[in-house]
């Protein structure tokens, strides 16, 4: 049962990722990314990370993707020009991708992590639920938690400064 769910979610995640890269229209790319994010949430649930899965669906597939869709609708998804500034880019990029995958595989295989071949230790039912994560965030990782909230605030102000209409431009 678990294996079947894993393979369905893995196929969904991979298909979504390939869709993001292959779709001509940026709007369809965003929709493919939503499929990818939902499949990843299922994978997180399989790894007993309930809170991360919920945050993935609510924050990513909900809020961030709505932002993307607004910007794609505002800017308009024009197709890319066929002009290739680097000759053979369409051929070279997948080759480099294959090389990167082989490199990552070698790194994982030679890492000598013996626990990689197991499904991990048995964990108690509360593993990864909101209470446990919240306790960690507010006790052990309080300073990173506050720093990330300041980072979010700075990003929001930066986006307003970048994209906001200036007064003299409007006049």
């Amino acid at each position, binding site marked *: 049962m678990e294996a079947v769910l894993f393979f369905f979610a*893995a196929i969904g*995640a991979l298909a979504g990722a390939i869709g993001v*890269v292959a779709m001509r229209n*940026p709007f369809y790319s965003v929709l493919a990314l939503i499929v990818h994010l939902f499949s990843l949430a299922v994978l997180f649930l399989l790894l007993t990370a309930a809170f991360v899965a919920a945050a993935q669906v609510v924050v990513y597939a909900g809020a961030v993707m709505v932002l993307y869709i607004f910007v794609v609708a505002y800017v308009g998804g024009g197709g890319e020009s066929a002009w290739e500034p680097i000759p053979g880019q369409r051929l070279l990029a997948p080759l480099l991708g294959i090389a990167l995958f082989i490199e990552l595989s070698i790194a994982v295989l030679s890492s000598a992590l013996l626990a*990689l071949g197991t*499904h991990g230790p048995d964990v108690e039912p509360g593993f990864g639920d909101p209470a446990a994560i919240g306790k960690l965030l507010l006790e052990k990782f309080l300073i990173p938690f506050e720093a990330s909230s300041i980072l979010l605030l700075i990003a929001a102000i930066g986006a307003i400064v970048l994209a906001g209409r200036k007064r003299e431009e409007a006049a």
Partner: protein
Amino acid sequence: MNVEWFIVLSALLFTTGAVGILLRRSPMVILLCLELMLNAGNLALVAFSRMVGNQEGQVFAIVVMVVAACEVVVGLGLIVALYRRKLPIDVDELRGLRG
């Protein structure tokens, strides 16, 4: 399910995102491919946290989500600013900073 399956899937997703960044020229799609790579990293973090039986990897994954959200907000703000100034939305035509 063994943890190595999740790690292999994460490597595949990361590679797909990297190929997308190399192939595509629309900054919007490049941002989407960056999301793919960050999410692949997240999957690896959560998988390793399950392998060790420690929840701290999941906290890392949540911080990565926050950073990804910041990156999206600033990137989309830049794209909107480009559009307002009637500049081309294509990373190959924006070569003003090229040495």
